[in-house]
């Protein structure tokens, strides 16, 4: 609706705002697919979280979450996500700037972009093996005692895929900085520090925070590394969910996993709300 009013206000000729009668049919395959495999699963989680074992509606799945192990798992997840997303975002932004300030067709940019595309997706067991070989008990570089410690050891290791992801999502924002802004700052006598403190920094801040929030959500579901090293202690929520989904011992409560997942949705909704507020602000400035 907002689009329609905007075009009217802009007094554009009919084209842009007119809705061709059957044009929406072209979007049906996409809508059907995402409906079944994205929106429906999310709906199922929320629905089942309030379902009792015998079928009726209940809050007991939710109240059952209020136990010491679950509380510590949520606390662990939050700690891990905050540590890895904050460090990953800062270091990733520095790397993204270094990449962006080079030749857009250059070898270095290609290497780092290709590398980022790959490494951002390899948060799984590969990561565990790579760091086991580097700083594990028989590691080649050093024998760190903290390599599998939680949350700092794992959090730092998570940076191995968080930094590349940050480069991928933050690079477009840096590429969007206009050289005229830099020149204007210099013409007015501003130093590099002034430029970053009063122009570049504030302009990039919303995009930076938005990207950091994405890293946060990204770290929420990564648990392969922890799972590969530690199967006794339940550090993070995905481990609890994994336990309730594929546990060989029949669980008393079949909807425990849904309730845990709903807890994560709540965390993410808070994060997402912040992200969209920031996006709106960034769009207003850079428009």
């Amino acid at each position, binding site marked *: 609706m907002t*689009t*329609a009013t905007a075009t009217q206000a802009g007094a554009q000729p009919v084209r842009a*705002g007119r809705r061709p009668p059957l*044009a*929406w049919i*072209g*979007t049906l395959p996409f809508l059907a*697919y*995402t409906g079944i*495999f*994205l929106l429906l*699963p*999310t709906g199922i*989680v929320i629905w089942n979280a309030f379902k009792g074992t015998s079928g009726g509606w209940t809050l007991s799945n939710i109240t059952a979450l209020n136990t010491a192990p679950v509380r510590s798992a949520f606390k662990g997840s939050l700690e891990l996500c905050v540590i890895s997303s904050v460090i990953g975002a800062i270091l990733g932004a520095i*790397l993204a700037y*270094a990449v*962006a*300030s*080079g*030749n857009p*067709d*250059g070898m*270095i940019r*290609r*290497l780092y972009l*290709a*590398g980022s*595309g790959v*490494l*951002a*997706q*390899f*948060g*799984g*067991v*590969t990561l565990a093996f790579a*760091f086991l*070989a*580097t700083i594990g008990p*028989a590691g080649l*570089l050093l024998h760190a005692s903290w390599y599998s410690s939680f949350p700092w050891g794992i959090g730092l290791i998570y940076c191995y895929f968080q930094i590349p992801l940050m480069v991928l*999502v933050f690079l*477009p924002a*840096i*590429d969007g900085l206009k*050289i005229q802004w830099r020149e204007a700052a210099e013409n007015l006598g501003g130093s*590099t520090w002034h430029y970053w403190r009063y122009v570049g920094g504030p302009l990039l801040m919303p995009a930076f925070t938005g990207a950091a929030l994405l890293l946060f959500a*990204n770290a*929420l*579901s990564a648990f*392969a590394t922890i799972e*590969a090293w530690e*199967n006794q202690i339940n550090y993070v929520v*995905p481990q609890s969910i994994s336990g309730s*989904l*594929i546990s060989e011992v029949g669980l008393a409560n079949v909807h425990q*996993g*849904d309730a845990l997942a709903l807890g*994560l949705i709540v965390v*993410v909704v808070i994060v997402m709300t912040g992200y969209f507020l920031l996006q709106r602000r960034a769009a207003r400035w850079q428009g």
Partner: protein
Amino acid sequence: MAGLNPPLADLAADLTGRPAAARRPGGLRAAQRRRLNLFRYVAFTIFGLFFLLPLLAMVRFSLEGAKPGSWSVAAWTQIASYPGPPPLLSSIEITLELAVITSVVMLVLVVPTMIWIRLRARWFSKVMEFICLLPLTIPAIVLVVGLAPIYNRIERVNVSALMLFFAYVILALPYTYRALAAGLNAVDATTLSEAARSLGARWGTVMLRIIVPNMWQAILNALLLTVALVLGEFTVAYLLTYVTLQVNLFEISRNAENAGVLFSASAATLLFAFILLLILSYAGRRLRRGRP
């Protein structure tokens, strides 16, 4: 084309030797440019080491012989012969097939929809963007809990691990959408399609023969990111109890800790994905340059 030539790139001479300043005289002062270059050298070295050392260590581990310190390629030949269940090779095969199927389905689903929306249903683009970026914010771990009942239904029809592509297309959506949107923005789709339509082309022709050839680079990028995602995915496959390469490696590490094949197979996957991305990024550049 503005998107392909980031303004900031003009700020500095590139390490590869093509001085950007030559294109834009009076950009940065020499002292500032030196400082920026110093910063870039230091950053690339430190980050390069951070990313490379674990990979090199993994490769070294994979080449370790029976005695500590010796060298052997046994772990690499084992990739082909490592027994299961299921054999390592079969899970590699499944993962590669999954990568292909996911890429194809993703392209067929997303590219026409995006072009269609750009040309005929602009008002829909915000909804599309929202849906496509949603998987970045709904963690895969949440999605998989809701997908479990759906996959129960799917398994009644087909129990193959290839069915994972349904979920993988969703996971790949944000990355492919971003790549494709960037490509589509660099094309004046409206003018091109009006020109083609006025010459009598049908919508299918406009999409396949006019718009798509103009966004090959973006399509390649989307493909690469999808392939990398499928090769590295663990959470969804593991929790839906399908045995892909990553899940198989995980199971092997449970049974035989520090088995050499873990390191060789992991290193091989990473190298494969990396080389694929690099090759295709050059191929994309040639396509772009070859355009009149």
